[in-house]
């Protein structure tokens, strides 16, 4: 199966006569560079250029939030940002949530509270949740619902997603309290 996933250069960089620009983005703590067409969307750079396919594209119009990533810590919809706008910035994708040895509590929460079904909206949901919990470690249910209102889910009905985020918030507070 490995041949199915070989890394390819950013798809628009090979065309003669098309202007390209070098961008350097710090993605999940690692600096990566690519030559991109100015019109290339950030979501496509992440997915096709860097093969970080956990960032999904759902609606192309900034509504569904499947492509949500953290941009300098803030949740943005990467389908409506140009790759060149990310030059010199920091991006966190779902692949940057877990460490080699352990899951992020938000990931654990989604699994434990059955906060996902098909999994397509999940990466964006978790990143929006992370942005919330980074700012507000003890949110109310309403605050969670509001923070996730830019992310659509068609499977779960949200109730378990909200529970997952509250579960993670509690877990994060406990680990902070223990001085880690």
């Amino acid at each position: 199966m490995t041949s199915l996933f070989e890394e390819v250069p950013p798809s628009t960089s090979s065309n003669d006569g098309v202007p390209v620009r070098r961008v350097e983005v710090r993605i999940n703590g690692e600096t990566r560079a690519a030559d991109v067409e100015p019109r290339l969307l950030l979501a496509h750079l992440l997915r096709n250029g860097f093969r970080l396919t956990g960032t999904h594209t759902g609606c192309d119009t900034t509504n569904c939030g499947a492509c949500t990533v953290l941009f300098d810590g803030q949740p943005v919809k990467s389908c409506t940002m140009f790759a060149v706008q990310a030059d010199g910035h920091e991006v966190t994708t779902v692949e940057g949530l877990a460490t080699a040895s352990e899951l992020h509590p938000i990931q654990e929460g989604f699994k434990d509270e059955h906060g996902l079904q098909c999994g397509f909206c999940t990466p964006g949901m978790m990143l929006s949740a992370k942005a919330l919990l980074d700012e507000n470690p003890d949110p109310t249910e309403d605050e969670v619902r509001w923070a996730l209102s830019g992310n659509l889910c068609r499977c779960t009905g949200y109730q378990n997603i909200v529970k997952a985020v509250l579960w993670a918030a509690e877990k994060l507070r406990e680990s902070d309290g223990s001085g880690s």
Partner: protein
Amino acid sequence: MSLDEIKIGGLGASRRRVEDNRFIRGKGNYVDDIVLPGMLYMEILRSPLAHARIRSIDVSRAWAIPGVRLVLTGEMMQARNLAWMPTLSYDTQAVLATDKVRFQGQEVACVIADDPYIAKDGCEAIVVDYEPLTPVVNPEQAMADDAPLIRNDKVNQNDNVIFDWEVGDRIGTDQAFAEADVVSEIEMHYPRSHPSPIEACGSIADFDRSTSKLTVYMTTQAPHIIRAAVALVAELPEHMIRIVSPDLGGGFGNKVPVYPGYVASILASILTERPVKWIEDKTGNLISTGFGRDVYLKGQMALRNDGKILGVRMHTDSDHGAFFADAQPSKFKIGLMHSAFACYDIPSAHLTARGVYTNKAPGGVAYRCSFRVTEAMYFQERMVQAAADDLGMDQAQFRRVNLVRDDDFPHRTPFGFLTDSGQYEKCLDIGLEAIGYDDFLQQKEAAAERGRLLGIGISTMTEPLGAGNSREYDILGIKMFDSAELRVHMTGKAILRTGAKTQGQGHETTWAQIVAHELGIPAEDIVVEEGDTDTAPFGMGTYASRSTPVAGAAVSMVSRKIRAKARKIAAHLLEVSEEDVEWELGRFHVRGAPDRGVTIQECAMAAYSNVPDGMEPGLENNAYYDPPNLTWPFACYIATVEIDPETGVWDVLRVVAVDDCGVRINPMIVEGQIMGGLTEAYAMANMQFITFDEDGNCIGSNYMDYLLPTAWETPGFELHEVVTPCPHHPIGAKGIGECATVGGPAAFVNAVMDALKGHGVRNIDMPLLPDRVHEAITQRHDVSGAPPVKGS
């Protein structure tokens, strides 16, 4: 001695999902995640007009763009006899338009290029000269004498009518109406909606000239049906076709049909001899792929003064769009609409159904439902509430009078289905108790005195899930059975494959639980695979809540075959006769000597190392399961709402759901399915619909216009259960994934209509948008949702 079934992840364990391990890490493998060496990208040029003759198509400017490798038009498809393809309902559908376009968004040309941006540039560069024709946007217009003929491509099609169909007892029903004290009538529209999984459709076709093998990775809920269709349409040998359905980002019925994009990508790969990827954008998905609903009802009920329903008449006019591409069993032209009123004891009923072509996208898929049961149950429950109002009876009591009693099973429904079990009144009672029915009625009255509008809506229904039995259920003649194949390895670990295809339902988790229940092998020792036609046994796929009733039953049956062989091996190992071997979960022991036993794992090892003389080695088998009947889950949904009379906005106060889906394999997953279904029910009642303007422009072609509920407006849900095991299913389970979507909408709408009782309003068509509710309150009349017709 015996294993704890919950500990090994058997039936009833809320086992955490296996598939989540990759999804939460962003390591799912959806079609768009797959990259093949040398792959090209395809984009589709769609019609901007709903009805127009194509005068000419000029593709020269597209060909001139560097990086464009191929441009496909209808003419090129026609030269290869691929311009039209059969639908799942014995009609034909254009792959790429040749003569005229028949709906906005119809596929006109495809550009295949080095990357998707260039392919889009190519589409922009194509010039199509259209001659606009009068669009037909609703059934009334389609059936008018002077209506434009949409399907002039079909010989002998002289009008826009697709079918005129009837079912039930016309004479008996006429008699019931003659004897009625009261006749209750209502008209309504179940609006067109789109299943809209967040992931749109797509495919990667990879034709290898050297082996003549075609592999297609694609978003399909039914890979084997697709393989058969490709064999027939593209005239390729079936053993040289491999369909792979990887992780799916939701389906909800939208990923059942065969779409032009799939066919075009296959031809493009054959012509370019390179893999060709087509990933549909959201607008393409919303305006061209399988929609749900779009049915108009005229309903009548014959009633006795004491509340007894004597008979029901239903007439439906359904809008199928430009091609009759409903995904449904062949025998039933309007799906299982005639499953309406199955939970009520009604002597006779009659349904007439007419289907028409319009200049709208084709589809009529079972959007999170079992073939139009969503419309059936919505119409049923709205008619029930209207009838209760007409009789001046309490809506709960009216249901209680008419529900089938527990000791009346098996029960023949008024349209001829056979239901086999249920505790309907118990479900209703639990629901009423949970919502605090009597208290709410008092609150409502008190609130009304202060000018506040509170309402309560009930929906009770049983629905037929799990098509089918093969006597009655087939798609294009292929019987609707399903299958499972189980291989137990020598160390007692196993791989299970089925003909179903998960798209979020969690089969990788739950199927292993069924095996654990049957064999005592811990669920974590069983890997489940689906979706690859080269390895999975033939099955009809996952939709219409058929997986647990059919494929899930096959999983049980194949496990039992394995157990039967293991028993012979156990007898051999224990040196006793087979009759002296007793089964307990995960282990055989000698009758009367429970200490002398062998585990299923020891039997598995022996199957490869120490089989008795004359026995075939190995421990694997398959099962094809043809269910004797449908499964009939029952549900009672109750919602309470408050309407703001100034704005027409209504808020949900509480939602109570009581579901009886029989034995629950994984209660956590079942509850997840119910909450998801309730959300779609709320969505349809509140905001979610695809409508059209008088020119046939689709209003709802993106998520800015097609409203889906977010976490913010979606209400919380309170879940309750009743367990009546299905008498014919091997583990007593029934379908559940769609019950709430089917039964839920009427609970919300009935609640709003209950709040408006006394306001001179009988019906507001879904969705109950604030402006519609406001119009009903201020103008004191019904509000229709039918699209406007030009010039009227």
